[in-house]
């Protein structure tokens, strides 16, 4: 979808894009061509790239050879300060509730959101 491409192009350009509804103001992620609450038209916004760790796991048994080379790697769910949640990779030694800031890591030709502790 065009929305997905726009999101990932944002990652390539170093910004985390999400949506706000122009009608009801609802914050939406992942992006869609409509607002899931009111059906209104969303507009794009760029996150301030800071948030809080909601959940985390360290993956030792990878799903593919590509990821096995990286294992163990930490997968997080992060609550961004703008009010949406997303999956991302994370640096070591993070805990639930930790403040984090966004960077990116390139993997499989793609720039993936990667969060580090925000000191």
């Amino acid at each position: 979808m065009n929305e997905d491409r726009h999101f990932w192009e944002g990652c390539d350009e170093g910004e985390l894009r999400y949506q706000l509804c122009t009608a009801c103001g609802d914050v939406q992620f992942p992006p869609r061509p409509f607002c899931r609450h009111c059906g209104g038209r969303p507009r794009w916004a760029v996150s301030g790239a800071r948030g809080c760790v909601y959940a985390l796991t360290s993956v030792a048994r990878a799903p593919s050879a590509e990821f096995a080379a990286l294992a163990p790697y930490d997968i997080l769910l992060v609550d961004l300060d703008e009010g949406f949640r997303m999956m991302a990779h994370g640096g070591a030694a993070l805990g639930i509730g930790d403040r984090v800031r966004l960077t990116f890591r390139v993997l499989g030709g793609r720039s993936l959101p990667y969060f580090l502790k925000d000191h």
Partner: protein
Amino acid sequence: MSWIVGVGDTPCGRLEGESALSLMAKAAAASLENAGFERGEIDGLLCGYSGTMPHLMLSTVFAEYFGLKPRYAHAIQLGGATGGALTMLAGHLVAAGACERVLVVAGDNRLTGQGRDEAVKMLAQVGHHQYEVPFGPTIPAYYGLVASRYRHVHGGSDADFAEFAVLMRRHAGHHPGAHLRDPITVDDVLASRVIASPLKLLDCCPVSDGAAALVVSNKAEGRAPLRLAGSAQAHPHQHVSFARDLADFGLQGCAEAARRQAGVGIKEVDLLGIYDSFTITVAILLEETGFAPRGQAGALAREGVFGRDGPTPLNTHGGLLSFGHSGVAGGLCHLVEVFRQMAGEAGARQLTRRKTAFVHGDGGVLSSHVSLVLRAE
């Protein structure tokens, strides 16, 4: 009204030389024999899906192969909740008069037909293709995320979760068809290698071959009909990243709706069949459906509440964790075991006769839910 009037299954584990269809046929034939019916007496067919045999029309492929000419047939895809959903729909179909007897069947040869690596890779694809799969999660990783949040909010330890792995292995030791039967201890679970923290190898179910089937009828026929007394579903989210709250999936309403429909209070339930893909899964489901206080499921397991001698024996076939996980059939096996225990057909592992069972299936990552209440009358 609707009744389960017969069940059948295959052993679970490594079953060489089988296909999804051949396994489904074995379980289906066993369920017809158990119920005392010929193929021509079945007029409805509901089936699950197969990882080794993806097909647009699996139900009619199976009907042709097995020799059925149903007047109602289709497949359902709802992950681990499929077995419960198939059974719930079969109950509605016979109650509505659309069919007299519906065969519910599922089978897969994931282990020999696909292998562990391929199965792990395939299953990871239930994640969001744009916003989860690129990060390399696995099914254990999705549940590892859930477990981390559960711990943060409700407490509990690795040893608490491990109780369910130990219990399921103990129960599987009584079932000759179980995939994993060697006894294990809490220390064994804690010492097993990490798969996706905090989940270790023995917190996870195996990948198995197997099949299961049951017959649902509009009459209380057969040797020991089991009434489908209540059923309800809940579908709070699809992807773990977009679940509202990983420490509260809001399943209480689903479980209570099924019990209310059946007219039974939670204290009347004397047998449990609860989806147990991981130790954390069964802990969460027991708590959210009302059978343990929050954060206490593992402690109750340690006290013996869910053992064969306890008030609410759980998954007496050994569950997904030890009887094995053969895809859709894995979730149907909980119902097969409940039927056998309530019909007095559980052989050497027969409990004292039970009257009221609660069964709960979970598909995705605690995404899709089916609660069922079954009564022996």
